[in-house]
């Protein structure tokens, strides 16, 4: 298990590469105040007022910083973090402890009174807090938001959900990401958590969309691929016949990764995009990125 002190040190190092010296001085002062203070008011004020000292520019990280981040915490991707949220996370990590969990009410209070950007910071740091299993309800609650950036802070580029959410909560995450048309390839650990219940719900969802004369996002087919049956094969075939180029590419990928014999047979009949998969230019992230560009 990673040590809080190591994480804090790392965050301070990468933040000081991106933020002005005066801002870092302010943060140092606040850390002293927060750790020395009785009660939480110093923490709450510093947490909010960090927006006066740090910008929403993304952290500048080189390859070795990113590798260090992954070593400290597997799946941790601070290259998506802003300097402001990094400063806020450093402050919060001062208030938590590995020894006991009596800081959780303080964290709750921060969540309950947070603005939009503060929520983004608090949720994106879920994989860094000690006692992560105690924050499962908080994560599920956060996923109920309709604020896209807050949802993204939990669902995308964050290793916490795949590691800690139970199946119903995980399935809600994926379904809601599809409803909100979020880039699914950025959900950490998505393939490992694919499950038959999710696949069944998605089959119903596709039928519902098709009945309404709407289509579905191409990345969705990734989650049906391991559970292909006759019904799903029928859907694949319909898309291969009638879909847009991107939809056909996505279904070709889903078939390619499936074990079902029917999929191999389908690919024999619709081989158009197989070459692209074999030469490495067609993969799920590429489908997701193309879809994002199309919208």
């Amino acid at each position: 298990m990673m040590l809080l002190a190591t994480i804090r040190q790392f965050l301070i190092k990468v933040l000081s590469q991106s933020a002005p010296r005066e801002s870092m001085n302010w943060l140092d002062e606040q850390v002293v105040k927060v750790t020395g203070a009785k009660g939480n008011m110093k923490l709450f004020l510093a947490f909010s007022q960090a927006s006066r000292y740090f910008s929403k520019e993304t952290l500048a990280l080189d390859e070795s910083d990113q590798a260090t981040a992954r070593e400290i915490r597997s799946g941790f991707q601070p290259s998506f973090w802003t300097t402001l949220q990094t400063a806020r996370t450093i402050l919060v990590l001062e208030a938590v402890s590995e020894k006991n969990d009596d800081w959780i009410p303080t964290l709750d209070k921060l969540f309950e009174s947070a603005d939009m950007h503060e929520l983004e910071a608090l949720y994106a740091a879920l994989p860094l807090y000690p006692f992560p299993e105690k924050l499962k309800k908080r994560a599920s609650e956060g996923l109920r938001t309709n604020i896209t950036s807050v949802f993204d802070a939990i669902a995308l580029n964050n290793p916490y959900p795949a590691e800690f959410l139970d199946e119903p909560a995980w399935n809600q995450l994926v379904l809601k990401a599809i409803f909100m048309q979020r880039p699914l390839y950025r959900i950490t650990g998505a393939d490992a958590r694919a499950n038959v219940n999710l696949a069944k719900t998605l089959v119903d969802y596709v039928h519902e969309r098709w009945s309404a004369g709407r289509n579905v996002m191409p990345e969705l087919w990734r989650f049906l691929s391991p559970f292909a049956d006759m019904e799903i094969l029928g859907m694949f075939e319909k898309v291969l016949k009638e879909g847009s180029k991107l939809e056909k590419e996505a279904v070709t990928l889903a078939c390619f990764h499936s074990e079902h014999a029917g999929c191999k047979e389908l690919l024999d009949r619709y081989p158009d995009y197989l070459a692209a998969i074999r030469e490495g230019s067609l993969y799920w992230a590429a489908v997701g990125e193309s879809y994002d560009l199309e919208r």
Partner: protein
Amino acid sequence: MMYIDPHIHVTSRTTDDYEAMQKAGIVAVIEPAFWLGQPRTKVGSFQDYFSSLVGWERFRAKQFGIVHYCTIGLNSKEANNEALAEEVMELLPLYVGKEGVVAIGEIGYDDQTAAEDRFYRLQLELAKDVDLPVMIHTPHRDKKKGTVRSMDVSEEHGLDPKMVIVDHNNEETVREVLDRGYWAAFTIYPHTKMGSERMVDIVKQYGPERIIVDSAADWGISDPLAVPKTAALMKERGIPEEHIQLTCYGNALKAYGQSGQMEEKDWLEKEPIDQTKKHGGNTVLRGGQKPRVDNDSSNIIEN
């Protein structure tokens, strides 16, 4: 022309209003914390309200290309529930330092009771502590005395008039408010406050300096386009463009910009308002929604 509506309770308005406001040229709004029609009985109701002002409502406004700011405070009406008011006072420090909070407000007097006076003074002290401007709500009843008293008490607590915006002025209060160095805001709200024609006459008489126009549109019969409509009327009636720009945009920016939380670049450097474009990698619309194409008279509602 760009407009700011520096006093509007958009939480109570529909998305149609947001669309119309954006079309009319409103680029930014300030939503003062106020009462909700129904008196609150629990401190949690205040907390969730303050959270929505810095959270959900800000997101909602952004979807329509409007930058949303707010003021945080305990309104004068609900200050009369003293036990609850004390709890709300403990909550305020959690919110006043947040991004986009441009003033303590709207505070002041309603019935001008002892309890209102007590919490008004406490919040003036809070504003001094955190170096934020103050938005004063002047009372509907006994307005002139209430307005003078609001300024007297503010000065007793040592606030600089340039940090204080006195709102809901009329012909009877404006002279003294301006003479004493305060910002004088006018609320264009049918029947109870000002009509736009009276507003035009005031700008003709007093000029544009430190005068601010707002709508205070809320859940009552009110008009979220009051600022652009009044600006158009000013133009029709021969008020110079520069004076319109100051009273319907520039003065509000300068007054509330003193918070350090509101700058022109917040809306100028934003991407063009095209709902099909993305904001910072996110689409501005909620998942699955398509951008609205146009209002027409067809009965077909898009799928």
